[in-house]
């Protein structure tokens, strides 16, 4: 018994099965987390090695190189980049996306442990660090305060960070820029010298004073007391009165040689939130945790905590990545609803009956919820890709039901009962429905096979469309006949009322269209060569517009965030840097009303450690700007960014700056990164400078900059080894002594309320400000003599060499640029032209990196996918028609769909990027479906004995409506996707534009061209068989 007769005969079973599916789907949907993209863990592992005191060049030769040479054997390694800077070697290994990173990590550890004994002695054990998406902060909070500012970090740590950390899924909450309490003992070196004391001795005394010691037990009577000596400073003031020595019989107190201050540590970074003092809090999630859920819980927690904080502390949200996600997902859900409404209207328009429309439309929820079931059970999220997939599927899932219902209606009109019409009507078209579904699956299923980043991305699309389409076919073969058998009835009586009248009118209009199309086909048959030549001309013509279309990697979305990194002259003091920061803040506040909050960090954070920007220093400023939502402002985030660039250019003190918009948080750093390889620093830097100058003149480039920073000025103390030896001093003692006097010596820790604060001894600021101060530093040698630094060392000014970057074991640097107003492809072509004009020095090699490389790789993958899809569609059709040539005739629609894509992209000004490329691939499945309907019916007519011309005309007249209907459902489902301007729309828009353009254009062309080509080639076989049949008949008679 077939599926449809069972379904019709057991309506209740059928109904409850589908209800069960819907319930499962709704259940899955309710429990499904929301995210922006499918989870993609970046396949990067880093190895950090610290070698204190080594210069960048030493690090490169002794640490980075040997590590690189040995790590290059790790399996699945794709790229290896490294950065050697003073004290630190950082190697980043990039793997293929499918790599098991745990195995890779183990392999890396093995390599390191093998190599460790060949590395320099002084290095610290290398740290292997696996990047994960959880590194990306979910939220950035700001805290500002007036009176409580000094204690802000501590208050927040106790009252805010601890509760936040308890939220499930919150990985780490980092705090940046808060002041820290420090007890400073600022020594007057002259007084210290007068008493024959050193900083180190002073430190030793303080350390030995600040002690609590258990001193045994005392048994008295019945009780056993424990004895405890308490010498710890109860308050910081006590340090003043510690006796450090006796001089001429009088005690010398700390206050005699130094000033003790209980104050805040000198800060290397200054944080301002909207111009007020404050600090930033970064909330990171644990790997696999859901951003939206965490952000919601953090916000709830904040509301609870805020009232308990001191009244002058204000907590703000600098950015909340979940806002963009929820808003973009919400907008896409709206689009899905619009698509559903459009599809319903199209079906109603063509079918003209409510009941029939209902039967068709019910397949939408039934098949789409299976996508949720799939997503839920594979642990995926509801994201932009899965939702756009649903929009694509929306227009296609009704197609099968339409075909089935149409045939059932015809059976009923011929006089069958609804039950039998349902069974036999479905039987007649069942095979055709399955075949057309197979062609669609042939396009979408290969998407689940692509590898790399594109695979991570479009796998869901492939699965979702394949699953929903398959389920829709099942529904069309069971639910649709069952419902038809229950609800449809044939009435001969004339229907009256507004509804039927309009439907009669529409019917008449469509009838006119059918006839018109039939006449057009008649004319085309008479002028077939004209039609063919015009079509070929159109296709070739469309190829000429390809160079005019911009190409890009991934669409960037307006997520209302701008990052500005500014570098002032290297070595500039923080106080000077702050002045510039304030001036820029004023301009932003005055001229950019779109900016909602300004977060300024001047200087660099010492807590950032090895992850910090190598070029950060007291001379750098980082701004994080939050803009109002796109609907509330006229300028886009890119226009605002470009406006900011115009303002920043006029500051004479700014050396370089970048203004970045981080659309969707997805991409490979700077859009344009030209890699310049070469061993010689001067040659490569020189060439890169020249290239950068050229790039600055190319339209569309912004913030062109070299990755290799300028040389840093530094003062070097160069000892005379002989003299040093004469005084009995060693490098170790001298360098430590200088460090203790200038940077400070942490003598001991002051404990209060369970917290510890550093007690730092160093020279008073006025004694460490000039070169002379340094030269006059006194150092005690083992013989107890005081020696001044200038006696055995000189201070020289040096420029420290830049950081050394390497990629795949070659020295390189990149010339980076942002984009504005022009596409990646166009700018890249201009840069290539520029490079061609330049004289590339010997030993220098140039490669494109960044998004250009990503784009090339992605396009190569997608192109392969396109070929695979076309081949599979051919295979499905060849078996369906049992013919080699018929599929080719049908696939004539494909090139014209590409013409349509090019045209639509040109008109709308959209880019050809991975999203629109996927749109073009999807088209293969959709446009072929149209021609199949047309050709299949023509074949039928020919087989039923009609002449070829009559056959195409009859087929045209009869199949125009189904073709238009299925095309229009798909088309209208995509229109909301293409025209939406809501937040996040930039990401899915290209796909809508590509599909609409391609589908419209190819439908128009194929409605005429495919039947004509059929008369030219496809009919030959028919004629041949007919002739041979005739001969056989004549021979036998």
């Amino acid at each position, binding site marked *: 018994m077939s599926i449809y007769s069972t379904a019709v005969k057991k309506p209740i079973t059928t109904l409850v099965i589908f209800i069960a599916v819907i319930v499962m789907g709704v259940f899955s949907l309710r429990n499904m987390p929301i995210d922006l993209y499918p989870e993609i863990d970046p396949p990067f592992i880093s190895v950090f090695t610290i070698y204190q005191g080594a210069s960048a060049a030493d690090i490169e030769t002794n640490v980075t190189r040997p590590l690189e040479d040995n790590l290059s054997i790790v399996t699945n390694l794709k790229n290896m980049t490294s950065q050697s800077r003073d004290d630190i070697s950082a190697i980043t290994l990039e793997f293929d996306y499918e790599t098991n990173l745990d195995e890779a990590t183990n392999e890396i550890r093995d390599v390191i442990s093998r190599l460790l004994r060949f590395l320099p002695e002084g290095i610290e054990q290398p740290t292997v660090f696996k990047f994960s998406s959880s590194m990306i902060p979910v939220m950035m909070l700001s805290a500002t305060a007036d009176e409580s500012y000094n204690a802000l970090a501590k208050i927040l740590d106790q009252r805010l960070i601890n509760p936040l950390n308890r939220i499930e899924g919150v990985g780490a909450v980092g705090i940046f820029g808060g002041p820290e309490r420090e007890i400073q003992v600022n020594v007057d070196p002259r007084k210290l010298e007068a008493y024959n004391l050193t900083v180190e001795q002073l430190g030793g005394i303080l350390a030995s004073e600040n002690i609590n010691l258990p001193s045994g037990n005392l048994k008295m009577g019945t009780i056993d007391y424990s004895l405890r000596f308490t010498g710890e400073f109860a308050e910081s003031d006590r340090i003043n009165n510690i006796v450090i020595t006796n001089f001429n019989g009088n005690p010398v107190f700390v206050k005699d040689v130094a000033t003790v201050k209980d104050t805040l540590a000198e800060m290397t970074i200054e944080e301002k939130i909207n111009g007020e003092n404050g600090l930033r809090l970064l909330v990171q999630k644990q790997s696999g945790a859901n951003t939206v859920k965490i952000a919601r819980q953090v916000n709830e927690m904040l509301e609870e905590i805020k009232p308990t904080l001191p009244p002058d502390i204000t907590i703000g949200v600098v950015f909340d990545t979940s806002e963009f996600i929820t808003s973009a997902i919400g907008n896409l859900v709206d689009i899905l609803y619009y698509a559903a409404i459009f599809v319903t209207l199209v079906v109603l328009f063509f079918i003209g009956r409510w009941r029939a429309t209902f039967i068709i439309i019910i397949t939408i929820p039934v098949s789409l919820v299976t996508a949720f079931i799939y997503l839920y059970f594979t642990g995926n999220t509801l994201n932009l890709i899965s939702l756009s997939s649903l929009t694509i599927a929306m227009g296609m899932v009704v197609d099968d039901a339409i075909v089935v219902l149409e045939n059932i209606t015809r059976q009923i009109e*011929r006089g069958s*009962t609804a039950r039998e019409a349902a069974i036999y009507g479905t039987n*007649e078209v069942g095979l055709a429905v399955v075949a057309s579904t197979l062609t669609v699956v042939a396009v979408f299923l290969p998407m689940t096979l692509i590898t790399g980043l594109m695979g991570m991305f479009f796998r869901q699309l492939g699965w979702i469309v394949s699953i929903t389409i398959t389920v829709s076919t099942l529904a069309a073969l069971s639910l649709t006949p069952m419902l038809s058998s229950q609800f449809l009835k044939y009435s001969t009586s004339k229907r009256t009322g507004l509804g039927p009248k309009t439907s009669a009118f529409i019917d008449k209009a469509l009838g006119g269209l059918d006839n018109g199309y039939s006449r057009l086909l008649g004319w085309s048959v008479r002028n077939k060569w004209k039609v063919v030549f015009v079509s070929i001309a159109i296709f070739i013509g469309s190829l000429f517009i390809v160079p005019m279309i911009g190409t890009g990697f991934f669409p960037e979305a307006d997520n209302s965030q701008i990052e500005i990194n500014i570098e002032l002259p290297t070595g500039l003091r923080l106080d000077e840097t702050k002045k510039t920061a304030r001036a820029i803040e004023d301009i932003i506040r005055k001229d950019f009303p779109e900016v909602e909050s300004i977060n300024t960090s001047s200087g660099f954070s010492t807590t950032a450690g090895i992850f910090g920007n190598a070029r950060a220093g007291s001379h750098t400023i980082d701004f994080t700007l939050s803009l109002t939502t796109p609907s509330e402002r006229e300028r886009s985030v890119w226009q605002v960014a470009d406006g900011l660039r115009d303002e920043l250019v006029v500051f004479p003190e700014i050396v370089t700056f970048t203004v970045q918009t981080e659309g969707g948080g997805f991409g490979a750093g700077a859009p344009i990164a030209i890699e310049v390889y070469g061993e010689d620093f001067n040659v490569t830097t020189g060439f890169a400078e020249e290239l950068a100058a050229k790039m600055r003149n190319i339209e569309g480039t912004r913030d062109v900059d070299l990755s290799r920073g300028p040389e840093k000025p530094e003062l070097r103390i160069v000892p005379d080894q002989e003299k040093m030896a004469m005084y009995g001093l060693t490098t170790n003692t001298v360098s430590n002594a200088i460090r203790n006097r200038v940077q400070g010596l942490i003598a001991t820790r002051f404990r209060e309320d369970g917290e510890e604060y550093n007690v730092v001894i160093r020279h008073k600021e006025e004694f460490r400000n000039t070169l002379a101060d340094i030269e006059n530093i006194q150092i005690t040698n083992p013989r107890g003599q005081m020696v001044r630094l200038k006696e055995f060392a000189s201070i020289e000014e040096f420029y420290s060499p830049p950081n050394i970057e390497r990629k795949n074991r070659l020295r390189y640097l990149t010339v980076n640029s942002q984009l504005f107003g022009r596409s990646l492809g166009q700018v890249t072509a201009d840069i290539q032209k520029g490079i061609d004009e330049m004289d590339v020095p010997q030993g220098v090699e140039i490669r494109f990196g960044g998004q250009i490389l990503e784009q090339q790789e992605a396009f190569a993958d997608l192109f392969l996918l396109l070929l695979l899809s076309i081949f599979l569609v051919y295979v499905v059709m060849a078996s369906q028609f049992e013919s080699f040539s018929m599929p080719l005739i049908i696939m004539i629609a494909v090139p014209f769909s590409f013409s349509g894509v090019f045209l639509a992209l040109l008109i709308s000004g959209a880019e050809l990027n991975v999203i629109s490329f996927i749109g073009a691939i999807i088209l293969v499945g959709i446009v072929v479906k149209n021609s199949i309907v047309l050709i299949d019916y023509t074949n039928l007519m020919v087989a039923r004995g009609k002449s070829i011309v009559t056959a195409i005309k009859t087929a045209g007249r009869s199949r125009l409506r189904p073709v238009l209907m299925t095309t229009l459902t798909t088309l209208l489902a995509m229109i909301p996707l293409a025209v939406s301007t809501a937040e996040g729309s930039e990401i899915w828009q290209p796909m809508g534009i590509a599909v609409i353009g391609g589908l419209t254009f190819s439908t128009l062309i194929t409605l005429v061209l495919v039947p004509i080509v059929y008369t030219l080639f496809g009919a030959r076989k028919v004629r041949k068989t007919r002739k041979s049949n005739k001969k056989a008949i004549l021979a036998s008679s």
Partner: protein
Amino acid sequence: MKAVFIVYNQALTERVSELLDKHNARGFTQWQDVKGRGTKTGEPHYGNHTWPAMNSAVLSIVDDDLAQKLLVAVDHLNKKAEIHGLRAFIWSIDSTV
């Protein structure tokens, strides 16, 4: 006794059974999925891609007067759904056991 042989488009199965029941023609033999085409106008019913429809056939041995009644009823049904295809043939039965 007459043999009534009704060949019909499968889509009419229920109506034909109904028709037999209504006239109290209890005994019958039915063939499902048979192929055929009309002599003059009837479209082929082959159950293939070109001609997807299929026929069924019923043979019922009835009394003479019932045979005539059945024929009228079949003609009536045929007029209602002419495009489907429905034919009845009657011939005499010599003897039965």
